[in-house]
């Protein structure tokens, strides 16, 4: 009897140490994403429980602003995030301990005007007011497009800086501005409503340009390379699924954004306008960084190894 009791107590004590042995990697990992079309692979992975299937305890957090995601990554509150490529480059240029590890979305940004104004090309924007978000990808691509059409962004047009995508659409509709550099699905939505006209997509001058990327915190990548690769594996799986199931993907986007209708979103996901992808080319990241340096948003172009870490994605695709 006594020995039995001793044994039970010992077994109970031992069982308590079991979680200690497994703590490495069982505290939930946090991925910060925004409510945007091209972050849908994360919504899919979240909804379909793909992380759990790979043995990961991951929470996908919806955050309102890109800057907050980067700041949370720096603090270590998030381990992985999805942000526009320009945000990632700006943060890394200022010394953020992050690396770009994969793509999540391409294209989908363009210039919207009012149909009634009858504007046909970029040159007709001379002297007009254009709403954009300062230092965002919308800003970078807009300036590039304007310069391509022979317009000086500082002198030949009047740029109005606002904070939110929706505010810019409202400003365009009410006539406070004449054009806005904006993103899907706002663009298709405005055209569908009948008052808007998409002047151009930036993919016209840079086909398939990167839009949003996946970034990983350096410390997390160092300490837990396996978990990072698992997360990327899930990401690739979700991207492939999204491209194969456009309508269901549209529905998922509607559910997470709590806005728009599935057919509108599906329309904007039409491959020529906006697509999800995970492939990453260092060259295109470098090109974006160079553009940002030319426009004065960063002082120097960081070394490519500082910006991009292809190893995890490569490992996953083997």
């Amino acid at each position: 009897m006594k020995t039995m009791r001793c044994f039970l107590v010992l077994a109970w004590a031992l069982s308590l140490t079991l979680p200690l042995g497994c703590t490495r990697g069982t505290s939930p990992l946090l991925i910060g994403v925004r409510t945007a079309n091209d972050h849908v692979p994360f919504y899919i992975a979240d909804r379909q429980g793909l992380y759990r299937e790979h043995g990961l305890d991951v929470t996908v957090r919806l955050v309102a602003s890109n800057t907050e995601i980067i700041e949370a990554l720096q603090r270590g509150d998030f381990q992985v995030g999805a942000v526009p490529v320009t945000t990632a480059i700006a943060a890394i240029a200022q010394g953020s301990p992050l690396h770009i590890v994969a793509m999540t979305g391409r294209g989908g940004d363009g210039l919207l005007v009012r149909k009634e104004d009858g504007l046909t090309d970029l040159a007709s924007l001379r002297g007009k007011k254009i709403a954009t978000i300062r230092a965002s990808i919308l800003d970078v691509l807009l300036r590039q497009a304007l310069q391509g059409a022979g317009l000086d962004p500082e002198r030949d047009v009047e740029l109005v800086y606002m904070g939110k995508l929706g505010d810019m659409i409202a400003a365009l509709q009410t006539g406070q501005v004449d054009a806005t550099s904006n993103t899907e699905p706002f663009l298709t939505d405005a055209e569908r409503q009948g008052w808007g006209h998409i002047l151009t997509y930036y993919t016209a001058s840079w086909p398939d340009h990167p839009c949003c990327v996946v970034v990983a915190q350096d410390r997390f990548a160092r300490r837990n390379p396996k978990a990072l690769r698992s997360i990327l594996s899930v990401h690739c799986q979700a991207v492939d699924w999204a491209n194969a199931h456009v309508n269901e993907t549209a529905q998922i986007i509607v559910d997470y954004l709590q806005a728009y209708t599935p057919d509108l979103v599906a329309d904007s996901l039409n491959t020529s306008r906006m697509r999800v992808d995970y492939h990453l080319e260092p060259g295109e990241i470098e090109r974006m960084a160079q553009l940002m340096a030319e426009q004065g948003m960063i002082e120097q172009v960081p070394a490519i190894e500082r910006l991009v870490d292809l190893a995890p994605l490569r490992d996953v695709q083997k």
Partner: protein
Amino acid sequence: MYKSRRISWRSELRRWLLPLALAILWEAGARLALAEPMLLPPLTQVLARGWHLLLSGRLLGDLAASAWRVLLGFGLALVIALPGGIALGLYPPLERATALLLSALRPLAPPAWIPLAILWFGIGDAPAVFIIFIGTCSSMLVGTLAATKAVDAQLVKTALTLGANRWQAVRHVILPSLVPALLTQVRLGLGLAWMCVIAAEMVAVRRGVGFFMVEARNLFRTGDVLVGMMAIAIVGLGTDRLLLGLERRLCRWRAGLDPARLYAPQEQRP
């Protein structure tokens, strides 16, 4: 004479001791990498960046844009709140009529007005000016009202019995009595105006210190954010000093009524 000069040198040093200590702490802490460079760049780096921005004209341009909005919004608020507060203080029926409205508007912090301001006034200077106006007007109105009600009634009665009519009593007794309180309201209001302009600019403008700081944050330039803050602090300090100087000149007669004098070190009396 030599002795008094030595004393004033020491008291000047004492004034700078605390800021100097903080500056050294900042520089040392950042250099020793106690914090990540993105969280707190070294002070010398921030100052160098600030100098660069000053020379390029960027900082001054932004300060001028913000200062212009402050001038308009605060100026308008001043013109309405000071006479308004005095009027409310002198006519209780008027105060009763407006009390409910004023109490309701008070808790609405200036940022709460931003969406409405943009809706009504669109983009540009107007919404920012409106927000500064709303924010500072109600605070100065309440302060002026309180100060007016606190004017010594005995002094008013004295003026009357010396032959003043109501208007003369206001002009020769109530207004001079209120000068110190009004200057305090202006000082407080101006500080509030700068806070409002920063909040208002974070939404839809082209230039301005608040806009500059939002842009800096979006580009993760912590140094620039700090430069913006320092610029505002310096401007605020400058205007505050000016107003204090004005108060000292206009209110020389207060010297004897200042309770702090009891605790001040003994000075030479004429």
